[in-house]
């Protein structure tokens, strides 16, 4: 333990910062840094894990999927251009609209946020890299594999065709393997999304530069924090829903089958508890980009920083109270609809506040209409229109008319183009010099903008009318005598104009720019840290990590740039030849320790491939290879963690620069890994809560849950099982305290107790006649037990990992991070098992 006293001086004095770094020292340091952070050469380039490489691949892949999904949209528009068209048949049309929505949401809108954030967040925060580079790479490769698998199904005419919302019973009972591809392929991608969200949250909380307290961090970071938190709470209900859904499709457990006590409404709830926050998950990051561009254009700090933080946090919360507005027509009681109608209107407040804060900033600033502002202006025009129709459809009687019509198609595209696509493209124009060290063409940008803006409005403005004239969504054809013909023709023409605009933009993005001279480092005269990047590019992220105590350090802290470049600040060197970044405290960004981050690796790709196998093989009901893949995936992940995380450093602490000495190894709440486990487990607990919610949902929704004469889990066995698991948890906790020889014995005993506990819980149901295919009640009980058993297996693997760590000297009393992290997992696991015990042994007896 390095106490504060012997860490040295912090914060640095102006005197220390003013001291020059000798040129030859600076050059030697820069050379060492360059060598450490160099990209792997030749074909081994693909083993790179840096945020600058993975982020670019991620962005390009997501853009590629966006283009594919856009082509599907164009084909649909061709089909709908004239009535009774036979360009596409019903089956293919249904596949196309399903995949258009699914791909735009899961393969573009969410991943592009994570991609852009992985790419630029470290530079916004003056960090060298994300805290877990290999996790980003793993998430990226999972995304590529899953995305190709899901989109590839279109080529075999086997794509999902029940809509991106996959409502049962349509999706459970009909249509080949499409639904399985959707469920498993996208679950796989959702897991990768959660992994990226965890990494981004930890990045914002723990990887800020020294001095960057929460009140001065870039607004983009606030949004990343909020959106990451939303992903952590919004995606798990869908994953829980996917789990139930797939159990029904593969093993006929009747979760959504009304004849056996199931209820298709449960899926709608779980789907939209995910689906509505999701809309804000894709909207807020674009507001975040806008919040970076607007002050630069206004040449002054943002007005109403606190207001914008309020908006981000407030929207994050309120967006979880809107989901039933997708279900206004399901016949729920008027009073219930009223609550959601009211919340849907309430969310207008924080959404509006952000827009007015931007306008206020522009009012008091000296505005320059830099090119990205054109896209922001377009975004405002489009988004406000979408927001206003949103206010309309939140009014229940109006929604009863326009729900599931082209009015909604128009509304949602107005919100998504204005609230997501236009600001993202504006952001790409803005950040491109950082990403590519080149500039995009302003002339082509104007062409792209006006083509897209015109095309968009020509396509979608008439759709409001089409919907109000009675045209429902998701129809592959329509009769010619209803007055919809010319409206549809206009929309189709507009779609092609818009596509031309997108092509111009993509061309500008990808055209070779070899001859273009290097752009200025800070072409827009912005005030935030990302504009300290190097031109031409350097792989080190930032030359030295600055001490920041203003919101716009390039405007407000003189000599920031030259001191960074001179290596005056923290971690200017890589004398041990390791990739390092600085970890600071959550609220005040007090420097805590030096984190060694991982370098290039193939193991992450292997882990992604096998994880993919574990999700993809079950689509075809090939369970043995799926199990083998899962085991190999776990083996790869263990190998990767064992060899590259929580490595015991060669010395206890190092000189971090500016007279600060920081430890190289920390554990518990100081360590980024512990935070990652904590956030991951919040997501896991949310998924579990969704299953618990399902039990209560069945109870409220049906007169007989559990049904008459239902059996109950064996109470004694449930008590014994939960007791054994609790014992295993207690032993793990003791092992964490001891962390020595005794801990090994404790962990071995804990593993036995956990295995026994899982087996006993299994027997608690097995010894009854509860057949999960007979009724939803036994199915739900079994689902809870399976959930717990899978988690117990993971818990035992972690205990074994710690045991091996102790045995082979990877874990010692001083270096005990894996023990802390495993115990944290076990806290959640123990709670899960206790709740499960109550849910299977006590709750059903009370419900009858």
């Amino acid at each position, binding site marked *: 333990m390095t106490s504060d006293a012997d860490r040295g001086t912090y914060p640095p004095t102006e005197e220390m910062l003013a001291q020059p770094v000798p040129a030859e020292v600076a050059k030697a340091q820069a050379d060492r840094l360059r060598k450490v952070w160099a990209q792997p050469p030749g074909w081994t380039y693909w083993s790179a894990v840096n945020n600058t490489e993975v982020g670019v691949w991620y962005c390009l892949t997501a853009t590629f999927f966006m283009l594919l999904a856009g082509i599907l949209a164009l084909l649909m528009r061709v089909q709908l251009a004239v009535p009774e068209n036979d360009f596409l048949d*019903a*089956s293919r049309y*249904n596949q196309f609209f399903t995949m258009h929505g699914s791909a735009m949401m899961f393969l573009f809108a969410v991943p592009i946020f994570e991609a852009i954030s992985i790419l630029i967040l470290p530079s916004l925060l003056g960090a060298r890299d994300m805290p877990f580079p290999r996790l980003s790479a793993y998430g990226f490769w999972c995304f590529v594999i899953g995305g190709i698998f899901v989109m590839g199904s279109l080529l075999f005419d086997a794509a999902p065709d*029940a*809509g991106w919302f996959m*409502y049962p*019973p*349509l999706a459970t*009972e*009909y249509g080949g393997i499409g639904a399985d591809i959707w469920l498993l392929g996208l679950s796989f991608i959702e897991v990768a999304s959660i992994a990226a969200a965890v990494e981004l949250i930890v990045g914002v909380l723990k990887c800020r530069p020294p001095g960057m307290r929460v009140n001065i961090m870039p607004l983009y970071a606030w949004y990343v924090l909020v959106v990451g938190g939303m992903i952590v709470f919004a995606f798990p209900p869908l994953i829980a829903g996917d789990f139930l859904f797939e159990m029904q499709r593969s093993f006929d457990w009747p979760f959504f089958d*009304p*004849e056996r006590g199931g*209820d*298709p409404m449960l899926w709608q709830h779980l789907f939209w508890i995910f689906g509505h926050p999701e809309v804000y998950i894709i909207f807020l990051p674009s507001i975040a980009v806008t919040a970076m561009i607007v002050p630069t*254009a206004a040449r002054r700090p943002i007005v109403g920083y606190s207001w914008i933080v309020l908006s981000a946090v407030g929207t994050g919360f309120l967006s979880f109270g809107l989901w039933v507005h997708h279900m206004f*027509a*399901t*016949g729920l009681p*008027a009073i219930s609809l*009223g609550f959601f*109608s*009211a919340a849907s209107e309430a969310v*207008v*407040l924080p959404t*509006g*506040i952000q*827009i007015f804060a931007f*306008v*206020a900033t*522009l*009012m*008091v600033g*000296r*505005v320059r*209409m830099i090119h990205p502002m054109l896209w922001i*202006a377009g975004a405002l*025009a489009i988004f*406000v229109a979408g927001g*206003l129709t949103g*206010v*309309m459809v939140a009014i*229940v*009687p*109006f*929604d*009863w*008319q*326009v*729900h*599931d*019509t082209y009015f909604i198609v128009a509304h949602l595209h107005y919100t998504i183009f204005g609230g997501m696509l236009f600001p993202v493209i504006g952001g790409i124009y803005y950040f491109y010099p950082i990403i590519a060290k080149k500039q995009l063409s302003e002339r082509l940008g104007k062409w792209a903008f006006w083509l897209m803006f015109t095309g968009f409005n020509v396509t979608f403005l008439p759709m409001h009318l089409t919907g109000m*004239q*009675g045209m*429902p*969504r*998701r129809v*592959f*054809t*329509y009769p010619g005598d*209803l007055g919809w013909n010319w409206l549809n023709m206009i929309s189709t023409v507009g779609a092609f104009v818009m596509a031309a605009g997108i092509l111009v933009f993509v061309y500008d993005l990808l055209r070779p720019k070899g001859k273009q001279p290097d752009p200025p480092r800070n072409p827009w005269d912005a005030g935030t840290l990302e504009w300290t990047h190097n031109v031409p590019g350097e792989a080190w992220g930032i030359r030295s990590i600055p001490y920041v105590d203003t919101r716009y350090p390039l405007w407000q802290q003189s000599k920031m740039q030259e001191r960074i470049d001179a290596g005056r600040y923290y971690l200017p060197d890589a004398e041990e030849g390791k990739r390092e970044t600085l970890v600071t405290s959550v609220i005040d960004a007090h420097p805590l320790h030096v984190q060694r981050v991982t370098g290039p690796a193939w193991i992450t790709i292997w882990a992604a491939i096998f994880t993919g196998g574990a999700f993809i093989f079950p689509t075809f009901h090939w369970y043995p290879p799926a199990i083998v893949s899962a085991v190999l995936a776990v083996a790869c992940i263990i190998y990767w963690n064992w060899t590259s995380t929580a490595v015991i450093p060669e010395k206890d602490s190092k000189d971090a620069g500016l007279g600060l000495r920081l430890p190289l190894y920390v554990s518990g709440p100081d360590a980024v890994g512990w935070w990652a486990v904590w956030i991951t487990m919040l997501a896991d607990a949310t998924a579990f809560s969704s299953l618990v919610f399902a039990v209560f949902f069945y109870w409220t929704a049906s007169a007989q849950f559990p049904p008459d004469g239902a059996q109950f889990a064996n109470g004694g066995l449930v008590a014994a099982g939960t007791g054994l698991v609790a014992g295993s948890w207690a032993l793990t906790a003791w092992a964490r305290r001891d962390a020595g020889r005794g801990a090994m014995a404790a962990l071995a005993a804990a593993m036995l107790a956990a295995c026994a506990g899982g087996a006993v819980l299994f027997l608690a149901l097995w010894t009854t006649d509860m057949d999960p295919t007979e009724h939803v009640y036994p199915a739900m009980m079994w689902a809870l037990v399976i959930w717990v058993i899978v988690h117990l297996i993971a818990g035992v693997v972690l205990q074994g990992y710690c045991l091996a760590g102790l045995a082979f000297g990877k874990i010692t009393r001083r270096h005990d991070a894996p023990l802390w992290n495993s115990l944290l997992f076990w806290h959640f696991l123990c709670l899960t098992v206790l709740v499960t015990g109550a849910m299977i042994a006590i709750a059903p007896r009370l419900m009858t």
Partner: protein
Amino acid sequence: MFSPAGIDALATLNLFWVMLAGAVVIWFALNGLFLYVTRIHVGKMSRRLAEAVIIGGGILFPLVVLSTLLIYSLPMMGHQRAPDDGLRVSITAERWWWRVEYWPDGADAPVVSANELRLPVDQRSELLLTAGEVIHSFWIPALGGKTDMFPGRITRMTLAPSQTGTFRGQCAEFCGLSHALMAIPAVVMEPDAFADWLADQAQPADLSAPGRAVFLREGCGACHTIRGTPAAGRVGPDLTHLGSRTALAAGILPMTADALRAWISNPEAVKPGAEMPAYDHLNDTDMTALAAYLMGLE
């Protein structure tokens, strides 16, 4: 919904015009402000004004507008769902057609029909909705809003038509392959005419035509009911008074002999995925007779 023929549709349309007017004003105000500060009046404005914009535009203005909107619209839900003196109709959505059963006051068995809804004008009728296999949604835009139809669950809505006429409805929830081909005409009648019509519908069909034998021989009765004949199938639509309906195949084809022949000989060509088998083996005489018989069931 621009030519409302029902009380609810009219109320919703009026609400829409008010909201649209407000939306247009707000849109121009906000975008105008943006244009003004970025293009026309570029230069430092007062900080105090900027903050007034945030508080006024972000909090006060939406607070007033949205509260008013909610207080006005929330009671509409209850009004639009409260049953009144009209009749009750059960509608079951199948893939891809509608089973319609009328329950006049005091009836202990319904009057069964299909693929067409008739309602008396100036009365509020209650619809009890359910579905066979998958979720559908019932919607007659000219009369009112829509309500989803679930297997294993009954949802309720009411409609209060205020004009007579025929109005097109269509399934609004995606229900699989031929979702696009699932419409339903709603015929609103004067109460007396409606009562007569319903009394007629309650009668069995007694038509002896050559096609009757073809119908029974080909086993059509396994799926279809024609009351007054041995045909009593429940799988497909009731055909007892088929000829009296305004359209065929769930609002997709006109009620003509040619359309009937086209449908019977190859339903798949009209409605992909339809469960009815093709009767393309029938010779021309049989087909003509069958079509004439069905058209004659009025």
